[in-house]
C-alpha cells in the first residue's frame, strides 16, 4: 500500500485555498450569469408587452373611438442609418402610409409625428383621393431617442421602437394596422448586428398631464402605430476588441503561476504589469457606452479579470511562503499545481459562461 505523508499545516493550506477560490469564484459566477440571463429573458417580455392592450383597455378604447375616423397605417423600414448608444438615439429611414375613408380634411401625412423622435426629413411621395378613399405615403428620416439596455454590452441585443402618433386625439382619429403590408427591407443591414425579428401593432397612449389647458380635465389619449425591430450582435468581434487585453493579461498571470510552481522563480513583480492590461481594457469598453450605464457584462468580465490577477498573485505569494518559511519545495510544487489548475479552470469557465449567458442564441 502506497503511503503519502502530509503535515497538518499542508492539508489545512490546501483545503482552505481550494475551498476559498471555489466559493469566491463560484459565487461570483453564479450571480453574474444569473443577472445576465435575466436581462436576456426580459427582452421577450418587453417585446410582447408593447404590442398588446389588455381587454379592459381595449373596451375603453373602443368606447372612446366610437366616432373617430379609422385610419389604416403601415410602415416600411428601409434602413437604420445609425445606432448611437453614447448619445442615446437611433436614426431610421422608412416609409409611412395612411389610408382612410371619409373626412377629406384629415391630411394625415402633415398631421403626425414620431413620439420621442426628431424628424430629420419628410417627403410626401403620394397623395391620392379616389371618391371617399384617401391614401398618403411619405418617406421619413427620423432620429428617435432610446435608453439603450447596456447590461449585456458588448453581446447585447436591442429592441428599437418608433411610434407614429397623430396630432389628433383618439376621439377623432384611431389607428388600425394595415395587416400584411408593413414590413422591413429584405436587404436591411447594419454593421455589427443582425435583424432577428420585427413586428407592428397599435398602441394607445394616455398622457398624464393636460398641460394646464383650461377646460381640459384629463390628459389626452392618442392612438399610436408601433413598429419594433430587434437587433442582435452578429459576432464576437466587439467582445474580442473589448477584452483582448484582458485575455492577454490572464494568460500572463497563468504563465507567472506556472513559472513559480515548476521553477524556483519569484514572478510576483510581473503581476502588477498585468494590471495595466486590465485597466486599458476597461478604458476601451467604457468609451463605447453612454456615460450613465448599468453594471453588466463589461464590468463583470473586467472584475473577473481583476480577480484572476489577484488570485494569481495570492497563489504566487503562498508558494513563495511555503518555500521560504517551511523550506518545502515539494509541497510548494504540489500546492502550486493543484491550486493553479483550479484557478485556470474557474477562470476559463467564467470566460465561457458569462458571454454564453449574455448572448441571445437563435
Amino acid at each position, binding site marked *: *500500500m*502506497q*503511503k*503519502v*505523508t*502530509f*503535515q*497538518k499545516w499542508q*492539508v489545512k493550506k490546501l*483545503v482552505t485555498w*481550494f*475551498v476559498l477560490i*471555489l*466559493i469566491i*469564484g*463560484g*459565487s461570483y*459566477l*453564479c*450571480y453574474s*450569469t*444569473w443577472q*445576465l*440571463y*435575466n436581462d436576456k*429573458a426580459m427582452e421577450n417580455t418587453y417585446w410582447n408587452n408593447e404590442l398588446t392592450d389588455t381587454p379592459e383597455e381595449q373596451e375603453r378604447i373602443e368606447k372612446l373611438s366610437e366616432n373617430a375616423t379609422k385610419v389604416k397605417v403601415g410602415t416600411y423600414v428601409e434602413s437604420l442609418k445609425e445606432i448611437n448608444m453614447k448619445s442615446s438615439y437611433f436614426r431610421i429611414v422608412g416609409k409611412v402610409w395612411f389610408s382612410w375613408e371619409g373626412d377629406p380634411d384629415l391630411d394625415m401625412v402633415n398631421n403626425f409625428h414620431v413620439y420621442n423622435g426628431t424628424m430629420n426629413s419628410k417627403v410626401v411621395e403620394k397623395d391620392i383621393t379616389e371618391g371617399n378613399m384617401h391614401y398618403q405615403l411619405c418617406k421619413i428620416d427620423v432620429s428617435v431617442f432610446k435608453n439603450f439596455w447596456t447590461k449585456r454590452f458588448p453581446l447585447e441585443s436591442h429592441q428599437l421602437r418608433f411610434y407614429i402618433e397623430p396630432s389628433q386625439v383618439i376621439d377623432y382619429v384611431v389607428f388600425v394596422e394595415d395587416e400584411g403590408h408593413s414590413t422591413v427591407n429584405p436587404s436591411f443591414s447594419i454593421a455589427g448586428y443582425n435583424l432577428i425579428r420585427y413586428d407592428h401593432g397599435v398602441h394607445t397612449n394616455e398622457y398624464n398631464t393636460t398641460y394646464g389647458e383650461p377646460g381640459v380635465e384629463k390628459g389626452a389619449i392618442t392612438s399610436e402605430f408601433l413598429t419594433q425591430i430587434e437587433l442582435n450582435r452578429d459576432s464576437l468581434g466587439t467582445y474580442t476588441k473589448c477584452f483582448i487585453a484582458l485575455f492577454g493579461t490572464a494568460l500572463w498571470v497563468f504563465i507567472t503561476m506556472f513559472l513559480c510552481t*515548476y521553477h524556483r522563480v519569484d514572478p510576483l513583480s510581473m503581476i502588477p504589469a498585468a494590471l495595466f492590461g486590465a485597466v486599458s481594457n476597461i478604458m476601451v469598453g467604457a468609451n463605447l457606452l453612454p456615460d450613465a450605464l448599468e453594471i453588466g457584462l463589461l464590468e463583470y468580465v473586467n472584475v473577473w479579470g481583476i480577480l484572476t490577477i489577484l488570485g494569481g498573485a495570492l497563489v504566487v505569494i503562498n508558494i513563495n511562503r511555503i518555500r521560504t518559511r517551511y523550506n518545502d*519545495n*515539494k509541497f510548494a*510544487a*504540489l500546492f502550486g*499545481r*493543484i491550486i493553479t*489548475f483550479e484557478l485556470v*479552470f474557474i477562470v476559463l*469557465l467564467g470566460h*465561457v*459562461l*458569462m458571454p*454564453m*449567458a449574455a448572448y441571445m442564441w437563435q
Partner: protein
Amino acid sequence: MKEYKSNILTVIWDVKSILLLVLLSLIDVAMVYFLDNLSGFPLFFDYFGAMAGACIGGPILGVLIALLSTIIRIIFGINEVNIIFVLEAIALAVFVGVYVRLGFFYKKRGVIIGAVLCALMEAFFITAMHLALYGAQPQNYSLYKSLFFMMRRIGMLTPFASLVGFFVTNVLDKGIILFIIYFLITKMPDSIAKFFEISKDFPQAVVVNNQGEEDFLAESEKLKAKAQEKIDKRREKEES
C-alpha cells in the same frame, strides 16, 4: 525537476487500460440514457464511469472517459448546448483522481469528506452552467426542486437557492457513487482485478504534526521495508 514529481497524473497505457476506458465510457452513456427515462429519480448519477476511471487510473483516465462518453452522446444526438457540461465532468474526474492519488480516499471517512468537497465544487459549477443556459428554471429532479422552492420561500436569492439545491442533491448523489466505487474496487474479485491490473488498495494519506514526525515515519517505513526484504529472503532460502 525530479523533486516535483508527484505521480498524480501518471497513467500506464496498455490494451487493458484502453479497454477499461471504452468500457467505462459505455457504462457512463448507458446510465445517462437509462436514468433519463426513469421519471421521478431524484438524483443525477451521471459520470459514474468517469469517476470510477479516475479512481482506478488517475485523473487523466477519468478525463478521457468523460470526453469519450460525451463524444458518444453527441453521435447519438445529444442537444449541442449540453456539451458545456463536459467541463463539469472534467472537473469531477480531475478532483476525484487527485483526491484518490493523494491518499485521502482509502478510508470510509475519506470517502464522505471527498463526497462533500466534490458536491461543493459540483454545486458551484453546475449552478453557474444552468443559470447561464436555462436561467432560474428549476431542474426536473424532485429533491432539487423541493429544496429550491423551500429556499426561495424563505427569501433566498434565486442563484443561491439553486446552489443549495444542487449542493444537497450532489452530496447524496456523489456520496452514493463514491461509496459504490469504493466497495466495487475494494471487494472486486481478484480475477477481474488481475485482468485489468487494478490495485485494490488505495494510496493512504498519513497526516503528521510536524517535520520530525514525517522524518520518523519515513525512517520507520524504510526499516520496515528492509526487515520485510530480509524476511522474504529467509523464506526463499528455507523453501529452496
